[in-house]
């Protein structure tokens, strides 16, 4: 019993940590183009996004009753240890992609983590691969393309309609509109993603017997999940904001409005149809479309390619890391401690590497992409040895990080 309580506590803390990384990873989705076009000042943008993410958490607990939407068989064997391993993989992948300034899907990282940990902990039959294909893979491929096409068409029309107006006046109008479209994305994000964390904590409490089966999330769970995602959002994943706002294309206000409207629409239509798509991919697709639909169509194809590769890698990479973590966690309490330590060390190391080339509110609109070579060396340390054999260069920095 003592062992279970310890694990449950660890899972809750890790779930909130994931929620935090989810927040700062995804600030860019709603706010990158608003910051790039000057519709909102960087600090104002992250504050609005944080408040709306927090508010969004309280709007609905509809999807919090399931964490995976049928991807893994939750009745068969979702143990707290599997959830813990899944979260570890998701957090590490989120931090690694943040370090490299790449917008990747937090949801895919979590799903990948759950799949990897379930395959190791329960077996292949614990995962419903048909659902993975129809609910995740196909929407993941289709949604950025739809958002991109819609943003492209909308941008073309917006420019065409306002071609004879004074650009200063019309830009002012489009910037105002961006405040609403960006806010809608933030709110939808808070509702969707905070619910995932609530779902994880609630299911963990149920499996530990602290809540009865089918219970809705208690208020403290809703509030802490909302607070964690809001805090993460406020911290602002400035590296990713820079990549999305300035790294892909030179986004002007009509393009910003078009891409945000496309993203908000695709997210809301798809989620009401039951597709669990990635906010990140939809928003990036919208920005790419808007970039190509602009007055002088230009897209940084190198950056676009890196993003698409990252999207493809997210699910399998998180699955591998979580699978390894599940192996170690299965060994008992010392395994949990070891994986937890690896998570802290890995996260701390990536934070320290990020300090070499900091991106913040003050320099977020510069076009220089975050240097991929600086991060390249950590890719190896973290990806290859996720489950813990602490490597020497990172060990030295743990005291600072913790």
């Amino acid at each position: 019993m003592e062992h279970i309580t310890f694990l449950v506590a660890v899972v809750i803390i890790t779930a909130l940590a994931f929620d935090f990384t989810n927040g700062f990873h995804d600030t860019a989705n709603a706010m990158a183009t608003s910051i790039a076009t000057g519709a909102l000042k960087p600090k104002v943008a992250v504050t609005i996004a944080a408040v709306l993410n927090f508010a969004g958490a309280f709007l609905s607990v509809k999807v919090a009753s399931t964490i995976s939407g049928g991807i893994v068989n939750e009745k068969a064997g979702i143990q707290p240890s599997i959830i813990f391993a899944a979260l570890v993989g998701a957090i590490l992948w989120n931090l690694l992609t943040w370090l490299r300034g790449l917008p990747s899907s937090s949801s895919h990282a979590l799903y990948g983590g759950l799949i990897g940990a379930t395959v190791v902990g329960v077996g292949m039959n614990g995962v419903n691969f048909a659902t993975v294909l129809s609910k995740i893979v196909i929407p993941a491929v289709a949604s950025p393309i739809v958002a991109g096409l819609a943003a492209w068409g909308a941008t073309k029309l917006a420019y065409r309609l306002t071609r004879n107006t004074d650009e200063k006046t019309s830009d002012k109008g489009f910037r105002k509109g961006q405040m609403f479209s960006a806010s809608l994305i933030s709110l939808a994000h808070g509702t969707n993603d905070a619910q995932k964390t609530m779902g994880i904590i609630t299911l963990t409490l149920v499996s530990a017997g602290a809540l009865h089966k089918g219970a809705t999330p208690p208020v403290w769970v809703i509030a802490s999940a909302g607070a964690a995602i809001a805090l993460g959002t406020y911290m602002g994943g400035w590296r990713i904001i820079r990549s999305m706002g300035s790294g892909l294309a030179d986004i002007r206000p009509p393009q910003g409005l078009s891409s945000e409207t496309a993203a908000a629409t695709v997210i809301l239509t798809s989620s009401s149809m039951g597709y669990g798509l990635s906010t990140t991919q939809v928003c990036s697709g919208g920005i790419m479309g808007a970039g190509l639909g602009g007055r002088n169509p230009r897209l940084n194809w190198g950056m676009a390619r890196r993003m698409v590769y990252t999207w493809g890698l997210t699910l399998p990479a998180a699955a591998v890391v979580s699978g390894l973590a599940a192996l170690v966690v299965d060994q008992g309490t010392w395994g949990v401690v070891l994986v937890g330590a690896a998570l802290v060390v890995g996260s701390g190391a990536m934070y320290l590497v990020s300090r070499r080339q900091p991106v913040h509110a003050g320099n977020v609109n510069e076009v220089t992409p975050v240097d991929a070579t600086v991060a390249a060396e950590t890719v190896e340390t973290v990806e290859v040895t996720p489950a813990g054999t602490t490597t020497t260069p990172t060990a030295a920095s743990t005291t600072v990080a913790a």
Partner: protein
Amino acid sequence: MSMSIKWAALAQTAGVSFAVTVAVVTVFSVGVLALSRREAALEAGQDGAPGAGAGKGGLALASVCFAVCAAVVLYGLSLIAG
């Protein structure tokens, strides 16, 4: 493992998303256009009468456009909360 991918539902979602996006941005752009026409008219009409009428019409059109966009945003909010 039975595969039942509902292509029709996917296509419908895609089509609706595309149509709504283009429609909303178009209406918003017309609003922006009307507003900037109004400003131009007001500037031109400062010493003569003819500008005032165009200014009023522009304001009315812009108001309708932005009201339509606001309604779409409210509908979006209801989808989020629902």
